[in-house]
């Protein structure tokens, strides 16, 4: 049994790029859903337009990296406006379906043969992260303690990534304890009541959608920067589902919930997978072949989510009282 590998890969995942990407997506979802009650199931679309905004600007239009970042951000804001103006009047569950639909439409368009020249079809676009790594201040080498080491590229991405994550958390913290955040939370509970108190509900919802989308879109950037490529199918509904799972695991409407949720999510994923693979490889589970590790690992991860949420339906940081109030 290669415990060392199991351990190091698990720790890598906990602090690695996956946690950053999914954590940012989840912070966005937390603003939408956790605080404002907007059941936005199209978070992946925000990541997609950001990733593609960057990729297409750099690779197709041949413009500099920073322009790409601004195009990505602009695309996320634009998407929020386009998605929000017609749909924010919908009831929560209807909004969920409409946003899923919108995200799927965007993915299918990115994927389509019609626009292959721009978006690269099902293979997507690659080769736009050069400038990012050119800014890397770390000299070449391997950094870390003990078995947990990163090369300078990864370290650079993680440094920037975690700074963005912490900034996002700080922003959420400041906003949510302010009167602005109070309006959002009130909208989550009952928008008619908020309207009756003279608040422009639509405007606040839109602000929330834009903010969450923009934070989520950084997840899209980091995905592209780390993998060096964006592909349409990465940004499918699965991504959004996982972001929601992360939010609930960490505790909805909690500042650090999404970050901790993302860590738990990936630790569970990697630990279960690698443990299982090692057990099979070393013959501890004789009835399973190593090919079957894949599905069983997923099954166990699914089971893991279920158990975690049964034990703590309010998530790690959640408040049990809040859950009790909304239980049917």
């Amino acid at each position, binding site marked *: 049994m290669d415990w060392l590998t199991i351990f190091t890969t698990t720790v890598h995942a906990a602090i690695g790029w996956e946690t950053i990407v999914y954590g940012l997506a989840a912070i966005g979802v937390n603003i939408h859903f956790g605080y404002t009650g907007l059941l936005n199931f199209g978070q992946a679309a925000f990541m997609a337009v950001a990733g593609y905004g960057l990729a297409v600007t750099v690779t197709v239009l041949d413009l500099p990296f920073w322009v790409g970042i601004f195009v990505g951000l602009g695309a996320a804001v634009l998407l929020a406006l386009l998605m929000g103006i017609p749909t924010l009047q919908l009831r929560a569950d209807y909004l969920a379906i409409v946003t899923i639909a919108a995200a799927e439409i965007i993915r299918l368009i990115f994927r389509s043969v019609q626009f292959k020249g721009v978006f690269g079809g099902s293979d997507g676009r690659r080769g736009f992260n050069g400038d990012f790594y050119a800014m890397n201040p770390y000299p070449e080498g391997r950094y870390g303690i003990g078995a947990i080491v990163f090369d300078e590229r990864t370290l650079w991405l993680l440094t920037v990534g975690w700074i963005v994550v912490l900034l996002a958390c700080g*922003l959420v913290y*400041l*906003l949510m304890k*302010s*009167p*602005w*955040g*109070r*309006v959002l*939370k*009130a909208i*989550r*509970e*009952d928008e*008619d*009541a*908020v*309207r*009756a*108190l*003279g*608040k*422009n*509900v639509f405007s606040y919802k839109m*602000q929330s959608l834009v*903010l969450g989308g923009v934070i989520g879109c950084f997840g899209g950037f980091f995905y592209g920067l780390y993998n060096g490529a964006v592909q349409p199918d990465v940004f499918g509904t699965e991504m959004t589902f996982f972001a929601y799972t992360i939010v609930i695991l960490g505790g909805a409407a909690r500042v650090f919930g999404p970050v901790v949720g993302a860590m738990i999510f990936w630790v569970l994923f990697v630990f279960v997978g690698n443990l299982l693979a090692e057990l099979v490889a070393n013959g501890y589970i004789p009835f399973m072949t190593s090919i079957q590790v894949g599905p069983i690992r997923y099954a166990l991860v699914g089971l893991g989510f279920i158990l975690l949420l049964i034990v703590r339906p309010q998530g790690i940081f959640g408040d049990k*009282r*809040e859950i009790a*109030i*909304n239980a049917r």
Partner: protein
Amino acid sequence: MAREPGVPKPDPILVVDKVVRRFGGLTAVDVEHVEVQRGSITALIGPNGAGKTTFFNQLTGFDTADAGTWTFNGRTMSGVPAHKVARAGMVRTFQLTKALSRLTVMENMRLGAQQQKGESFWRALVPGFWRSQEQEITERAEELLVRFKLDAKRDDFAGSLSGGQRKLLEMARALMVGPELVMLDEPMAGVNPALTQSLLGHVKDLREQGMTVLFVEHDMDMVRDISDWVIVMAQGAVIAEGPPSTIMSDERVIDAYLGAHHDAPLSDTELQAQLHEAEAELEAEIEEETQK
């Protein structure tokens, strides 16, 4: 004798003309003309289903009227979205309460305050901008909570309040807005009478400070006690207006709305008489049936 509906007032704050709202075949509201006097307490009464709540919904922009116009403070309010109506100074409460469940009672109250600096995105980021205002708001909210006997529940989630407490919170929160005209939809249904009494005092104080109150209520003791003017609705239309005493002796109103006993206790003698009546009826029926 009650006045004709729609009498002009010397200084109306709210003037309503020909508002109609239909649901399918049912005409829920069909108000020809109504004015509400500034600085008065006006009661809106009428049988269940008369269209009072629907009328409120039209006026405050929560539902779109099929026809009609109305002005508030001289400003046309028809077609204005709900939040702008509220900002203009016309605030309503809901008959079926809308507590913001997962906000504490205090947060519910604070939310009511208007023109909060911290409610703009950018200023929210710098607590310095809104701290002191928040302090003021909190103080004001605390005073109201004490009056409404909700101070003990200050930090509880509004979702955990009892039915009556929600009504109280609903009204207190509306008062936080500091409206010129507050429209209360059955504010005291389900509130303990002793507390109701003390709150009425508060409402009168508010009138002294210049606020206009328009409220729907089925509790005639309350209507009699505080209202300066009563408007009666039935089947969507305003059928009578006048000071409380005249209205309550109006035959039509008694007939359609108040019923014969509204003023008298259901004292034993009277009840006995009624019961005898009922029993006699029953017996007669039973006899009939047995004869068949």
